[in-house]
């Protein structure tokens, strides 16, 4: 996990941000292919198009900080530092998966990296990050916790309860609202009147800020400010990152409900394209960008192949991990 401290990213840092976004992109493309070809059963929720949010925010974190996220969590867990192969392995339900195959695509978790988990019940994970923040506050570790959730999740009870609790307890928490314009198949404007969701923060006496969620540097800057506040004991921040879900909600969704042109407009603002444009401005040449892309693709593909080769869990293993002692 990179700990960025300079006010703006250097060339090297930006290259690193791009590499990590590409890693997630390739990862998700491979997972999408697996589910389309029914290599895996069940459902999956992909992150293509939102990479700048997870990469930008986690880049403002340091070792010891934590994240929680949703069933659309591959990107966040990888950005937090989970190994590619064990993440693939979990989605494949392999014994070597992050969770031994018990959790699957919606539950990638890597405590060793501070990725406290992916949760499949909308809104359920927000208080988990509040609790991590409370622990940091009591233990004086200075750690910050970031919780990633969607626009649709901002209408469920736990969002309200957790925002309020975190504010009154001044917890070191970043509420990262990934506004990708849709909750499942519903445009946000059909499920709430005031679609400027960052304005909800005021009701809790918490700062709320909207940011271009496809610009990784913009996200990074906003996250740094929020992290600073949190570490200095000034409490939580609501960050609304405006972004777009390039694929459907889940495996079974063709996303027919999208108005014509919407996807293309957002593809033109693809976070990876934007980052590459930044780098060109910094004088990075095409060859370096192509090499980076090729290198990432090779590494991610290799990780996928490793995971595919792993054993299935033994049927007996299903009895493990219910209890510590019983």
């Amino acid at each position, binding site marked *: 996990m990179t700990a960025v401290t300079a006010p703006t990213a250097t060339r090297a840092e930006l290259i690193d941000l791009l590499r990590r976004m590409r890693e997630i992109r390739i990862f998700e493309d491979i997972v999408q292919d697996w589910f389309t070809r029914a290599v895996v059963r069940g459902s999956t929720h992909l992150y293509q198009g939102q990479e700048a949010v997870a990469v930008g925010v986690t880049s403002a974190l340091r070792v010891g900080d934590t994240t929680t996220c949703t069933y659309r969590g591959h990107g966040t867990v990888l950005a937090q530092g989970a190994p590619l192969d064990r993440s693939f392995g979990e989605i494949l339900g392999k014994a070597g998966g992050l969770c031994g195959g018990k959790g699957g695509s919606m539950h990638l978790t890597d405590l060793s990296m501070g990725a406290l988990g992916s949760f499949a019940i909308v809104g359920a994970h927000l208080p988990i990050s509040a609790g991590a923040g409370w622990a940091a506050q009591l233990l004086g570790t200075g750690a910050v916790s970031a919780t990633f959730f969607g626009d649709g*999740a901002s209408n469920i*009870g736990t969002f309200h309860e957790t925002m309020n609790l975190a504010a009154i307890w001044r917890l070191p928490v970043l509420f990262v609202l990934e506004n990708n314009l849709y909750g*499942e198949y519903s445009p946000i404007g059909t499920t709430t009147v005031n679609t400027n969701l960052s304005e909800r923060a005021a009701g809790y006496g918490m700062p709320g800020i909207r940011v271009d969620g496809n610009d990784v540097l913009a996200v990074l800057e906003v996250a740094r400010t929020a992290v600073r506040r949190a570490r200095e004991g000034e409490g939580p921040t609501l960050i609304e990152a405006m972004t777009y879900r390039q694929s459907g909600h889940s495996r079974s969704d063709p996303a027919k409900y999208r108005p014509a042109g919407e996807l293309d407009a957002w593809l033109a603002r693809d976070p990876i394209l934007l980052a590459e444009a930044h780098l060109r401005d910094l004088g990075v040449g095409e060859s370096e960008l192509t090499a980076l892309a090729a290198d990432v693709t090779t590494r991610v593909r290799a990780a996928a192949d490793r995971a595919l080769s792993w054993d299935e869990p033994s049927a007996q293993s299903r009895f493990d991990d219910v209890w510590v002692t019983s």
Partner: protein
Amino acid sequence: MTTLLETPRLVEINYRKVIARALADELATDPTVVFLGEDVGTAGGAFTSTEGLKERFGDRVRDTPISEQAIVGTAVGAALMGLRPVAEIMFADFAGVCFDQLVNTLAKYRYTSGGQATVPVTIRMANGAGAGFGPQHSQAAENWFLNVPGLKIVVPGTVEDLYGLLRSAIRDNDPVLFFEHKNLFALKGRVPAEPDDSFLVPLGVAAVVREGSDVTVVATQQMRHRAVEAAASLAAQGISAEVIDPRTLVPFDLATVVTSLRKTSRLVVVQEGPPDGGWGATLISAVTTQHFELLDAPPVLIASDATPVPYSSQLEDAWLPAAAQITSEAARLVGY
């Protein structure tokens, strides 16, 4: 009504799609029926089980924010004012986030008010394991509500039962929790081409799926089909198994089970979900406390493991009771 003279034309349809058909027939029959839930309208449902309803019934079909507590409470309030709401809680596991509304408001309103109101609300939920959805999207949640008087619980196992029971549930004046099993979505069946009340299935009446004389096997939804499979293998071994599907857990048709036990004197209950606190243990308790003398052998409870539902197909398949297990347990019991 069908008379003896006419036989209604039947159409084939699957378990996933018959949901919209049953809803449409009730929405068409009773103008007070309304339907709300997440993406149930414009999108046609997360499982495409409610397609076409919004187009046909307009404002009576409402998409909601992701707010299950508000969804259930809104249904209750609308019911108090004379409507007959059907609410969808996508996955039954999400009943957890609105459990208070279901258990403390919906189930108790009539009682607490001393019978001032009827609360004809139906809550539809996609239930059960086997499709690889992992620990938080695969539970047999009907077992969470058995200890809560005031909620009828319906668990259809066939297309015909889903159609007939859902229509009866909507017409029922008490709150009904209606569980649709995800792993039966592809199951095919036949319903009348035109709305036809003679296809309604009453709540509280079990189905004797297969007659037999050596052992009584009671199972619902996915397990009902595995029990039928097991009965076939048992027949091959010369063992005659009677398979009973209660179809509704509350009210429970104990009489049909008892009648069967008078023949067989042997009981096997097959339940999806962990053994403790489930309907299987409740049935075994009812039979042994009230009809002890009917049993010539220990009752058998075949349930899932006492663990959450694991994701990996190897693990999830092992977690669910298998037909082979039912066969061997039943055979052992007959040999007891």
